[in-house]
């Protein structure tokens, strides 16, 4: 069948079973929009800013096992998309971004709305393509989806000049992709896995440390099985929350800068550390020299060899898809009668429970003023712990991660690697579209929400009943906290004056707005909001302005040198 390049683009998306594309039209993609108009399989979500298109597609991908798709025009459309692309790249999210480009003959002429999109995005994509011939579109899009979802996932950009989208050729969607230069390892090395299992069985102070890879690999089930089989304590990074049920006894909470005392102590003093799909981020291990002071054997399972021995030297590297590797570990353990010594493990647990008894997540609640932690605990109760929670970046993000207990993967969507303020609402849009019946809450701050507030309009158009929980402290709270602790209380530009009345603003967009000022009104407001099944409700919680996030490991300090609460200051 002979089709135009634009029609081919849409046919490819259909072949990939894409149900939603998040985008914004413009000159260079007019043919593609025309082809979208003539079909109804691929639905288009018109956002109000290209950054939000990419974030929404990213949120869609995070909340499902699918590739998110965004469509933007050349020039400013593409540059607006860059923050979204970089955000997805830092958290290894599978996405395909299609961008329009000026006609081939105009490339390099400083044409209207011309930027070197492939050049600008190169450092923040897994790969990108400029398609110069209509006959290459189908094969390129096929490759883009394949690259996005296999190996270590990531965003892939396909730049299509306007004339290429107008040219015609015969359409056939390739059945397979083969690239001699790209063959991600799936199966872990048997011998290495055997070595790892042996180490785990002999460990005296074992610890399991897992991350976003478990979510990306859809391997929560395997992880849970292995962890129970071994009986070891486990921690999930900010990206890995829900990879292991947070309400389980073996779970110690999150590690790192704002992690729990018990998780950090157990990481630090473990003699065998099993790292699975986690990349020893600087926010997790604190000062690497301090971390290296305690001798321990590290087993590291990751699909990306470059994640291994990057910041921390590893003793048993295992490259492969962690689902496959975990299954093999389980198989070897089940085929073997040996189990960790119950006495040694018992005394290790005694130590861990002693750390746990410090109750580092305790906070002083108040009858007078709303505490942010309390709002999150109530949110957890009201939603039965079963909502999809998105967040922005700041203190509210940390409180959401600490006080909402995630028992399942793909329920917690946030920007960990890039820490992009403004993702919360678009993530919620993508998640709500992907999971129409689900309760979706966006935990945000008065500063972050304003970075993509225009999307309230998109939510109206697509009837997305998101519940926005604005933890309004009238401060760039996370910045204020650092200024208080490390910059002599000089609050340089961290105060937010002239805030809008968010409830009224929500109403102006056609939504429901509530302003909550008393602790006693928190639960009622949340219940009312979630009872409104068809409405977006903007809950503007006026919280304690000076609350800080604890525990905290200061930059440059070791994992065990934690500030547990304000009293430690």
């Amino acid at each position: 069948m002979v089709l135009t390049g634009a029609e081919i683009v849409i046919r490819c998306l259909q072949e990939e079973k894409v149900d939603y594309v998040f985008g914004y039209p413009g000159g260079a993609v007019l043919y593609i929009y025309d082809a979208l108009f003539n079909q109804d399989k691929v639905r288009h979500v018109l956002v109000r800013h290209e950054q939000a298109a990419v974030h929404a597609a990213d949120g869609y991908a995070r909340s499902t096992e699918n590739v998110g798709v965004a469509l933007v025009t050349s020039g400013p459309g593409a540059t607006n998309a860059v923050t979204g692309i970089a955000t997805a790249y830092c958290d290894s999210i599978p996405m395909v971004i299609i961008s329009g480009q000026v006609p081939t003959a105009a490339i390099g002429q400083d044409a209207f709305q011309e930027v070197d999109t492939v050049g600008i995005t190169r450092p923040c994509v897994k790969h990108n393509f400029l398609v110069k011939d209509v006959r290459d579109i189908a094969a390129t899009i096929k490759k883009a989806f394949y690259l996005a979802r296999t190996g270590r996932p990531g965003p892939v950009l396909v730049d299509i000049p306007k004339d290429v989208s107008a040219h015609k050729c015969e359409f056939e969607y390739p059945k397979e992709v083969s690239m001699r230069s790209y063959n991600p390892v799936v199966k872990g090395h048997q011998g290495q896995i055997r070595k790892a299992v042996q180490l785990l069985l002999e460990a005296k102070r074992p610890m399991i440390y897992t991350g976003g890879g478990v979510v990306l690999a859809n391997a929560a089930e395997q992880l849970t099985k292995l962890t129970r089989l071994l009986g070891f304590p486990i921690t999930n990074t900010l990206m890995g929350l829900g990879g292991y049920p947070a309400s389980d006894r073996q779970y110690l909470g999150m590690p790192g800068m704002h992690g729990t005392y018990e998780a950090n102590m157990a990481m630090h003093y473990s003699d065998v550390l099993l790292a699975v799909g986690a990349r020893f981020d600087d926010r997790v291990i604190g000062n690497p020299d301090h971390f290296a002071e305690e001798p321990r054997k590290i087993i590291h399972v990751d699909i990306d060899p470059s994640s291994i021995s990057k910041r921390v030297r590893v003793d048993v590297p295992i490259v492969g898809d962690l689902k496959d590797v975990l299954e093999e570990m389980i198989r070897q353990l089940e085929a073997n009668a040996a189990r960790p010594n119950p006495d040694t493990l018992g005394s290790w647990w005694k130590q861990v429970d002693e750390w746990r008894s410090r109750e580092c997540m305790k906070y002083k609640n108040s009858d007078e003023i709303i505490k942010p932690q309390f709002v999150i605990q109530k949110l957890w109760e009201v939603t039965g712990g079963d909502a999809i929670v998105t967040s922005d970046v700041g203190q509210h993000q940390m409180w959401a991660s600490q006080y909402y207990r995630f028992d399942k993967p793909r329920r917690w969507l946030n920007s960990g690697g890039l820490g992009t303020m403004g993702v919360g609402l678009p993530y919620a849009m993508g998640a709500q579209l992907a999971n129409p019946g689900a309760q979706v809450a966006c935990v945000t701050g008065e500063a972050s929400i304003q970075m993509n507030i225009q999307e309230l309009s998109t939510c109206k158009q697509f009837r997305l009943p998101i519940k926005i929980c604005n933890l309004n402290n009238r401060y760039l709270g996370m910045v204020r906290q650092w200024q208080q602790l490390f910059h002599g209380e000089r609050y340089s530009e961290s105060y937010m004056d002239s805030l809008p009345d968010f409830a009224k603003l929500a109403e102006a967009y056609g939504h429901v707005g509530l302003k909550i000022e008393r602790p006693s009104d928190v639960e009622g407001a949340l219940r009312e909001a979630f009872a409104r099944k068809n409405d977006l409700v903007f809950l503007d919680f006026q919280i304690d302005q000076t609350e800080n996030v604890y525990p905290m490991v200061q930059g440059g300090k070791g994992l065990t040198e934690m500030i547990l609460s304000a009293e430690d200051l």
Partner: protein
Amino acid sequence: MRHVISLLIENESGALSRVSGLFSARGYNIESLTVAPTEDASMSRMTIVTTGSDDIIEQITKQLNKLVEVVKVVDISEAAHIERELMLTKVRATGKDREEMKRMAEIFRARIIDVTDTSYVIELTGNQTKLDAFISAIDPALVLETVRSGVCGVGRGDRILKV
């Protein structure tokens, strides 16, 4: 430590900038980088001379391998290998310097490939140290310009980089 990394990469436009961008973005050193198509025109071969600790070199090879268009990477300096570089030097050659330059070229087994009344162009191939030695052996006041190709290299014997 100095390392010589050879790689095969798909001969696509932009492939070179992916590699050079990687080095600049991650703050790795590049002493020299050469690239040209191989006998199979769909692939280019690059030779990169870099320096760094073992950890950095390990990351460099891992990061290079991670580039989607890179087909294969080897650190040829890990074992027996050969390195060659080409240098063209234009020197002032008048009066007694004419004879002297010719003599130096002979000593280094270089060739004079262009001659005018006042200058020679001298072609010299060898490893880096040999080219450096030649440059320091001749009178710097006589050097008009030099151009070096950067190092290319292959492993000895059975060590073959091919798909």
